[in-house]
């Protein structure tokens, strides 16, 4: 299975993401730049975290208007899996590929720590290697992760099972509405999440709870089950 990583000026988690995809799939992802208008045929496109365009205007706002995001939107419309992590999630929201907005953390503080996530559904390609209700560990590192959506959108997300990850056990680090940490599009092929699964994929990271997300999205056989 092939993957691509979108590179934008100001992202800083791209190396971690490329390392995770390479280690887990055995193949380095192709990289595409903000000015690229076409993305090669891949099964998964990842927009990593960071501070694209210095978070100017709003987090992800400038990146979302770059040519590469039109190419990402075209691929998403064709059913290709797209995953945005942290700033990547913000960019997907600003692009309109996912509904809602991410606002400044309620505490106004940058949070960099580990949280617990409850996997709300195993009914997506991204989460099929998890059990529904399973609680996993992941790091977060962000200043603007406070998810917001209007009541109608929120009801639709909750009703259609589009809330995929929720902060569990009182670990909501940002005031996010309904403890939302990650959502998928109506068709299920676009995932946005604030936490960093790419930073918990092997024992050297202190755990590998994030690995199953990549194994699922890349359609790999689960050769190396996560350690408990």
């Amino acid at each position, binding site marked *: 299975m092939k993957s691509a990583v979108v590179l934008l000026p100001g992202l800083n988690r791209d190396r971690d993401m490329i390392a995770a995809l390479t280690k887990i799939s055995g193949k380095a992802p192709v990289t595409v730049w903000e000015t690229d208008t076409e993305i090669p045929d891949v099964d998964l496109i990842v927009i990593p975290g960071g501070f694209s365009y210095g978070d100017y205007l709003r987090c992800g706002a400038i990146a979302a208007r770059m040519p590469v995001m039109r190419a990402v939107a075209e691929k998403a419309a064709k059913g290709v899996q797209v995953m945005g992590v942290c700033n990547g999630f913000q960019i997907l929201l600003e692009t309109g590929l996912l509904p809602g907005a991410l606002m400044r953390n309620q505490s106004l503080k940058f949070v960099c720590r580990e949280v617990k996530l409850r996997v709300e559904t195993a009914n997506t390609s991204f989460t099929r290697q998890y059990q529904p209700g399973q609680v996993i560990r992941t790091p977060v590192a962000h200043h603007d992760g406070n998810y*917001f959506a209007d009541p109608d959108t929120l009801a639709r997300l909750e009703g259609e099972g589009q809330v995929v990850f929720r902060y569990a056990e009182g670990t909501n680090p940002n005031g996010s509405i309904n403890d939302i940490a990650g959502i998928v599009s109506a068709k299920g092929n676009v995932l946005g999440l604030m936490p960093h699964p790419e930073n918990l994929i092997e024992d050297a990271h202190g755990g590998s709870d994030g690995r199953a997300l990549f194994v699922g999205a890349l359609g790999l056989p689960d050769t190396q089950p996560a350690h408990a």
Partner: protein
Amino acid sequence: MIKARITVTLKNGVLDPQGKAIEHALTAMEFGGVGSVRQGKVFDVELAESDRAKAEADLKAMCDKLLANTVIENYQVEIA
């Protein structure tokens, strides 16, 4: 040349943690009676355009497409 000022503010009901922090700071500075503070953004835009109606339509499109996130923000366009 048309000069315009665009004001972007958070919609009612959208929590504004930064506005709240400023409100608390003002109260801590002993400015009495600060009921509420909401933070927003101002953009001063100069347009090489003489048709006011066209300028206004362009400025609104700029707001809808980039300057405001209409999920959480309202905007107001004032042409000088």
